[in-house]
């Protein structure tokens, strides 16, 4: 890849080890999404589309304010709106959905393509398209259902946390745009301190269960939420209460790994040769169908035109 800039790598998909390195990023970064400040304006969505040169096709109205209705290969963040009645009062919970940049990324662990998914030392988990084989295992590996496979180039896409901006000292496009500082960006340490203040403010306003969402099941995340109802994350359009990497991914990383290595001379070489001779387009019909499903459609569910 021709590039003018780079980030140091902490982990790399389908690579058994990353050699020790002298350099270390000075900060681990994080994006803090404060749902209690979010006005659901979708500035983050617009800024994401604009910065990343994404052309999401125009869809259809789908019954609520969610639009596009879900993440797609060209919409890496979407707002999810949930109406909740509490007696006479109403809460309209609005959550920005997108990649959580797990510290222990299931996608990376599941990915069979060397270097298709990397984790930088600053914590960002990034997809490197030129290495992606479009197999969709990252989708399976993700506890948050985030990656989407494009039908155009059969590669996986998701939020990069604007690694290109962060690499030159800029905040992600969504964070910069956010009108109400519902998205805040900085070092993970600073974000946790800031979150504590926000949680105190929310508690003073009667949200006794306010808290930080930084789930330990995935080693914590580099995208965290301040929730007014931290005891029930799933209220927010199904945010997982206790996300964990799929047991399948854990299984091969654990028990399977020695076995894999044991059969390396045969299966590994065969697998690799198959990959380089036939290429990633050579997938079964079933995989194709699955891929389409995972791609989630380029248009909305009702929007096939």
């Amino acid at each position, binding site marked *: 890849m*021709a*590039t*003018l*800039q*780079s*980030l*140091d*790598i902490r982990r*790399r998909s*389908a*690579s*058994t*080890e*990353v*050699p020790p390195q002298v*350099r270390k990023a000075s900060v681990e970064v994080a994006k803090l999404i404060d749902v209690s400040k979010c006005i659901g*304006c979708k*500035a983050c969505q*617009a800024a994401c*589309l*604009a*910065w990343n040169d994404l052309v999401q096709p125009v869809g259809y109205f789908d019954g609520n304010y969610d639009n596009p209705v879900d993440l797609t290969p060209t919409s890496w963040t979407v707002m999810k709106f949930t109406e909740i009645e509490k007696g006479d009062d109403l809460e309209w919970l609005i959550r920005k959905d997108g990649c959580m940049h797990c510290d222990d990324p299931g996608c990376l662990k599941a*990915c*069979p*393509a*060397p*270097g298709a998914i*990397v984790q*930088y030392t600053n914590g960002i988990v*990034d997809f*490197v398209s030129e290495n992606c084989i479009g*197999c969709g*295992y990252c989708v399976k590996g993700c506890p948050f259902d985030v990656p989407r496979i494009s039908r155009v180039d059969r590669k996986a896409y998701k939020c*990069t946390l604007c*690694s*290109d*901006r962060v*690499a030159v000292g*800029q905040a992600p496009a969504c964070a*910069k*745009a*956010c*009108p109400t500082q519902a998205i805040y960006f900085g070092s993970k340490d600073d974000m946790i301190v800031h979150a504590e203040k926000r949680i105190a403010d929310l508690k003073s306003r009667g949200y006794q269960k306010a808290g930080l969402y930084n789930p330990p099941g995935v080693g914590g995340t580099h995208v965290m939420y301040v929730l007014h109802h931290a005891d029930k994350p799933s209220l927010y359009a199904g945010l997982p209460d206790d996300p964990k990497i799929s*047991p*399948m*991914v854990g*299984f*091969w*990383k654990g028990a*399977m*790994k020695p*076995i*894999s*290595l044991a059969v*390396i001379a045969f*299966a*590994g*070489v065969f*697998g*690799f040769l198959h990959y380089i001779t036939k290429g990633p387009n050579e997938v079964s019909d079933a995989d194709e169908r699955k891929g389409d499903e995972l791609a989630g459609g380029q248009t909305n569910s009702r929007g096939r035109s």
Partner: protein
Amino acid sequence: MAVTRRQFMKVSAAGLAASSVGALGFAGAGDALAAGVRPFKLERATETRNTCPYCSVSCGVLIYSMGDKSKNAKSSIIHIEGDPDHPVSRGTLCPRGAAALDFVKSPLRLKYPMHRKPGSEKFERVTWDFALDRIATLMKDDRDKNFIAKNRDGVTVNRWLTTGFFGTSAQSNEAGYLVYKLARSTGILALENQARI
């Protein structure tokens, strides 16, 4: 958690592919230290300070264009984002402002003066000279015919009521002031902007 045989096979295959490639050293150790991220696209773009055209918060925007304004490079806008210096917006933009590039580059932007003849089913491209001369003539014809110098009581009123002007609230003060001068000097009273609507 139970792992079915089918899942086991699937996982195993993935594991093999991944483990094999990595362990055999096809992923070079050197490569693994750093990865190229998407190049920062504004590296040497020209930055121009402007104001978001939508609501009256009037957020500061930075417009990035390709071309350094040298003689042989035609500037074209490639990106718009918030101006962090602006005391009201502090670099933020709403979904309208954040998509402002799509307004500048909209396929529905008008490029040429167009003319639709009475009863016609289409617009036809015309020159600026044709359009402006035509408008000036239409204005003068109507004004000369319908100008009211005095009302019924003989009071000098110097008004022209048969032509109206809806002026835009999206134009600069300077342009708006010229609209005012033009309209009122001809006696137009029906002069409005988007303030009420």
